[in-house]
């Protein structure tokens, strides 16, 4: 499976767990276009932190490579990184690539 697909699947698994913590009417759709944070986002602070923590955990478990989404670099572009599920997938891809190439 290509890295992009692996990241997408991992994020869908994250959403499965995240949705368990949320009321049914606030469930997030497993779609790369789903807005997360920012203007059209649906996650409040606690929801966004749950997403960050679950994503860090699942990336380590399922992709075998821990990443950090709480550093100053990520925080300084939080609305771009967490705009949609797709933008988060792109950012994780970037971080994994950076790790791979040192």
């Amino acid at each position, binding site marked *: 499976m290509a890295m992009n697909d692996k990241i997408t699947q991992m994020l869908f698994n994250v959403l499965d767990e995240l949705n368990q913590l949320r009321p049914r009417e606030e469930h997030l759709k497993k779609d790369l276009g789903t807005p997360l*944070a*920012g*203007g059209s*986002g*649906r*996650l*409040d*602070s*606690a*929801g*966004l*932190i*749950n997403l*960050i*923590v679950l994503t860090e955990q699942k990336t380590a478990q399922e992709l075998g490579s821990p990443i950090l989404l*709480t*550093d*100053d670099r990520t*925080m*300084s572009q*939080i*609305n771009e990184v*967490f705009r949609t599920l797709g933008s988060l997938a792109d950012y994780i891809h970037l971080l994994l690539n950076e790790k791979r190439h040192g």
Partner: protein
Amino acid sequence: MEIKTFTVADLQLALLSEDFWLTKTLPITKQRALSFCQNPRAEKNDPVLLVAYQDARVVGYLGILPDKIFFNNADHKLGWLTGWWVDPSIATNGTGVILLYKALNTYRERIGVSGGSREARKVLDASQKFIALNPLKGIDIRFRFNATKTMLRKFSSMKIFRVGFKVADVLLDEIVNLRSFSWERRNSIRQRLTFEYVSTVDEETGRFIEQHYHHDLTRKGKADLNWIMTCPWIVSAPQKDAASKRYYFSSVSARYYYLGVKVYAQNNEMVGFLLLNVRDDRMSVAYAHFEGRHAPTIAAAAVYHALAMDVSTLVLYDERLVKSVAGLHCPCWSTQSISRGFFLSKAFADIPMADCRLHGGDGDFAFY
């Protein structure tokens, strides 16, 4: 959105600038900023305030109170989060999250939280970065019935009976006054004890505190308590001023002050020190130092002062004082168990909390 980090030195400059205070929403009051700059446990380059700006507008802020905690024979620096606010109209743009992680990163994950709103606790839980300490269990002792306040708060439609409630309060207060008089005589407080009042901690008290604070997690000494007493965040004022209307957290109260009470036994031996915090009709014991055997005496001294200062409620968090209050049969209408929550980041997971004592004023509680 831009996050600006203000160190103590930056805040000192901000106090001199005019621009910093022009924003529609204030990220801090001048009174609080002055206090932050005087914190004896803060260094010039310690970050103490994070402010989120969007289009030159303040959309969020988080204060950090540098402090030290003591365990395993060493002191450890940390920052207590205080005054954490995000503009509710942008609740989903991650501002609160940025502020929290910025604070954690800046203080190398050495952060403490005292109290906090339900929303804030939800966020702390979600981050999985914090451990909850055993809550500090205290007691609210209500001396005044305060029918007017109680009834009108519950049933606002009963406003037309306000005068009736006030009359009832006056009569009930007289009953309390009689009971207080009899309680004081029964306990012969003024025969058994003498008091000395201080607005700052003197040398004798400083030495006394040092003899008694070895199990305290924060070991607040003379300089620390002087800072609390002389640099409050809340000002006594008859009404809200312009700044307080632009700042989310408390900054003025009708009555607000600290009082240091040195308690002496008949033989002139100093047996205790209480740092009392009076806010409107409520008095709390922020810090209490004494030997365990004197707990009933010190508890009686606290009750005596609550009655003398005519407050409605006395709040105690010292475990020994709370236990002693039951035996005092004080002239109150009711007592209620209360608690205060403290959280520390997981960097402090190895604290032997069984050996550490928290005071009611720890974290940022001494300032409210």
